[in-house]
């Protein structure tokens, strides 16, 4: 298949797909005009029935909590898959890496330590970032945000420690075993939180906690604990994936420095 045939083939296929695309766009509802009934119902009922001010979080963790459990398992499984794929084969561990070290010390390829200003600013930002992440997790039912977003922000904190050039501290903060246990505990907590509803004779993940006053931190029933579990699982998963990536990529290069 030479270049010209390929181009014609592409053009014909593109025309066909463009026709389908146009016909699909013509049948879409007009921009900004929502036709389903559920959105209006949710907008009307959420604050009164569940005492939650952020409808998206209410939908995710209350109205269709079991779907979110599925999504969380997908995340968990993909993290596990990455960890399995990137595990170190035992033959590679004791490989000689002297050549790499010398290659890194060639002219123009030295590893510069980050300057004092960068280290101080980065490490100083870790504390505020952790506090902000906890705030986002804890206020998931009041403000935009929740377990996922807050978990990602929390996972960014150890990454900043690594970026300050301190791989040793990163490994101590994000101890690989602890992180993996944390991820498993996050998913397990979500699974267990569904059980009390069944014990009380209702459906799985049914709310059993008092709903509280809408607008307060302690409101919305089960959403806050579920958010905390999600946050733990997401942040631990992200840190674990980054850890194996780092180990795979940079471990041998840094040996000369330490």
């Amino acid at each position: 298949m030479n270049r010209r045939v390929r181009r014609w083939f592409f053009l014909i296929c593109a025309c066909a797909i463009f026709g389908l695309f146009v016909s699909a766009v013509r049948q879409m509802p007009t921009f900004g005009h929502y036709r389903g009934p559920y959105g209006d119902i949710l907008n009307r009922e959420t604050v009164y029935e569940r005492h939650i001010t952020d409808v998206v979080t209410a939908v995710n963790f209350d109205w269709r909590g079991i779907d979110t459990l599925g999504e969380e398992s997908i995340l968990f499984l993909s993290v596990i898959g990455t960890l399995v794929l990137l595990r170190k084969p035992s033959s590679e561990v004791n490989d000689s890496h002297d050549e790499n070290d010398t290659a890194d010390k060639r002219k123009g390829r030295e590893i510069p330590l980050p300057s004092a200003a960068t280290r101080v600013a980065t490490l100083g930002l870790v504390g505020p970032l952790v506090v902000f992440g906890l705030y986002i997790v804890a206020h998931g039912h009041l403000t935009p945000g929740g377990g996922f977003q807050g978990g990602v922000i929390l996972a960014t904190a150890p990454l900043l420690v690594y970026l300050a050039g301190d791989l040793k501290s990163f490994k101590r903060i994000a101890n690989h075993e602890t992180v993996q246990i944390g991820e498993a505990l996050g998913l397990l907590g979500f699974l267990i939180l569904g059980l009390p509803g069944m014990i009380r004779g209702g459906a799985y993940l049914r709310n059993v906690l008092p709903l509280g006053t809408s607008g307060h931190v302690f409101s919305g029933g089960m959403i806050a604990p579920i958010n905390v579990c999600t946050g733990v699982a997401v942040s631990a998963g992200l840190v674990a994936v980054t850890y194996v990536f780092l180990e795979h990529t940079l471990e041998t290069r840094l040996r000369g420095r330490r």
Partner: protein
Amino acid sequence: MVANIAIAVLLALCVLSTAICCLALILVKDVFNRMHYLAPVTSFSVLALLAAVALQNGWSQGTIKTILILLVLFLVNAVLTHATARAARVRQFGHWLPHPKEHILGAPHGPSSQL
């Protein structure tokens, strides 16, 4: 009424300074010159924005969060510019300390000297 006009003026100042700095970003050629235009946005523009938010809302959630934004951007942007400039020099010369032929006031000489 006076407050509304003051808010509008402050917002105009904020937007104008940001726009000028963004335009300068493509008009100025050298990377090291370009980096300077990050500073006015993080100090002056955000300060005008903070004043406008405070006038609009008084002492509220938004004002407190804008103060935090100002603090973070003001303190951290200088360090970010420094890190970027260092990366640029490392890519250009292989190390970031002054070249023997460069004469920078108060800077140590050569790649061998320690910082």
